[in-house]
């Protein structure tokens, strides 16, 4: 573990930008008032929150009063899905989602199944895509919600959200999208795209961890999730995380203003990595659609080797990467996303996710493509699966 670290796991989380942290700091110590308080420092906190709300609204093409701050992307997902489910039980109990959602959506849907709701998990094709047609065909008279992620956290694939939004609107069914990975990478407009609810989380776009937001279109019938005080216009209780919200606001402003510049930088790093690795390393495949993918996302499967070993070796070489979703690294099961695109278990186990960001350079890619093939080679030499493969091919 040298001193230098090349961080290639921006889909797991991002560092807070200095200007974001700078904007946050005053709200911890001097401007620490409770936004519900009537006196000067309380009003100041309130104002800071409302300014952040305007920034989020601007980033999404929404109205400020359609933005509600939460404690995380997961909370936004839980709220959106359970909130719609419970508020619309009289209309139906069927929810449509996909097999490759983040666990914050999947496990929430599974929970609702245990509470008597019915969930359709749409399969995806070998590139990780669902189609608006599939969604349309899954709609039933009792469908109350469609929840489909904007961009996948593991394989980076971007779903046809506009088309799905159109179907949802035509059928008059609420449409939620988990855009946690999309913010700052994709231009989003909730009006044009017919999105009724949208989840986001600050720490994926250089804001702080532990603060998110949920966009709820005006008029959407949804119950509250956190009960208590009258914060967020009575819809989400808890003393507001003022500094966190200020950080989220600042971060989304920066992220969405320079989205094109940022993307072209990331695409260059991504594409070179994909090309070089596919060229240099045998028995490797790229997971997720080659073109409809997040600008910074690369996801490979290397046959005959296992992901954690690969990560540990990369870490020892100063490269921070991930195998599937960071959230699930506590589990030993192969990624549900990789299984959903049809990978066999043993190949899914050998996956590597590299996600580029702000601080990465072409030199980082140089280093990566120097180191990675050697590590793969070394692990394969240790692998009984590779030995078996070679033996079989000798015959």
């Amino acid at each position, binding site marked *: 573990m040298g001193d230098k670290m090349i961080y290639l796991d921006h889909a797991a989380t991002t560092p807070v930008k200095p200007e974001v942290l700078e904007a946050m700091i005053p709200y911890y110590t001097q401007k620490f008032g409770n936004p519900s308080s009537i006196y000067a420092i309380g009003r100041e906190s309130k104002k800071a929150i409302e300014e952040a709300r305007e920034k989020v609204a601007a980033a999404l093409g929404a109205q400020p009063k359609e933005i509600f701050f939460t404690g995380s992307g997961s909370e936004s997902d839980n709220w959106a899905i359970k909130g719609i489910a419970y508020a619309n039980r009289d209309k139906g109990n069927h929810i449509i989602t996909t097999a490759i959602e983040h666990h914050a959506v999947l496990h929430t849907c599974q929970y609702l199944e245990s509470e008597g709701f019915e969930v359709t998990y749409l399969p995806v094709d070998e590139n990780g895509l669902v189609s608006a047609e599939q969604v349309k065909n899954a709609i039933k008279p009792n469908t109350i919600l469609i929840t489909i992620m904007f961009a996948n956290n593991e394989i980076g694939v971007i779903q046809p959200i506009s088309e799905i939004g159109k179907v949802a609107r035509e059928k008059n069914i609420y449409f939620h999208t988990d855009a946690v990975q999309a913010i700052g990478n994709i231009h989003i407009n909730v009006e044009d795209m017919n999105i009724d609810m949208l989840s986001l989380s600050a720490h994926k776009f250089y804001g702080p961890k532990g603060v998110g937001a949920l966009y709820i279109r005006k008029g959407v019938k949804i119950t509250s999730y956190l009960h208590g005080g009258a914060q967020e216009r009575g819809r989400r209780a808890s003393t507001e995380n003022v500094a966190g919200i200020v950080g989220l606001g600042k971060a989304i402003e920066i992220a969405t203003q320079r989205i094109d510049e940022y993307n072209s930088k990331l695409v260059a790093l991504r594409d070179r990595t994909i090309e070089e690795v596919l060229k240099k390393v045998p028995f490797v495949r790229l997971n997720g659609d080659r073109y409809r993918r997040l600008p910074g996302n690369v996801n490979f499967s290397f046959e005959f080797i296992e992901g954690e070993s690969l990560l540990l070796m990369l870490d020892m070489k100063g490269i921070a990467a991930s195998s599937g979703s960071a959230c699930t690294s*506590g589990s*030993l099961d192969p990624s549900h996303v990789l299984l959903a695109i049809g990978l066999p278990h*043993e190949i899914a186990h050998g996956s590597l996710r590299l996600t580029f960001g702000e601080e990465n350079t072409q030199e980082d890619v140089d280093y990566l493509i120097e180191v990675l093939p050697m590590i793969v080679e070394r692990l394969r030499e*240790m692998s009984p*699966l590779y030995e078996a493969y070679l033996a079989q091919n000798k015959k």
Partner: protein
Amino acid sequence: MYSEKVMDHFTNPRNVGEIENADGVGQVGNPKCGDIMKMYLKIENNVIVDAKFKTFGCGAAVATSSMATELVKGKTVEEALKITNQAVAEALDGLPPIKMHCSNLAEEAIKAAIDDYRAKNGLLDENAEKNACGRRCDDIHHMHEEE
């Protein structure tokens, strides 16, 4: 997460490789579950004089394989069969709870290699336990830390 000893055995695994014409070879685990351990033993006069392994698996799987080969060397077959998964884990200064099944795998790999040796030499105990090949992943994987 991993002890220094685990990381040492992962980074510099002892006895990686194959033994040509090994006296016993055992393979356990399941690629579906993400780990396979293959152990080669050279046995002379009932004593394990050399051991090598190949492993497809996580850091703990590699480290326990490495440690297991170290532990069996110089032992008689009977002594080697007494090596428990706890012993392997302890020799590595412990494993994270979620990784303890890897030490089971090492214990089983030793047993499987010795079974193979005995089978080849007509020494197979009729009552021998079967090794754990073909278990469902869920059996070993779905334990939450300490819960």
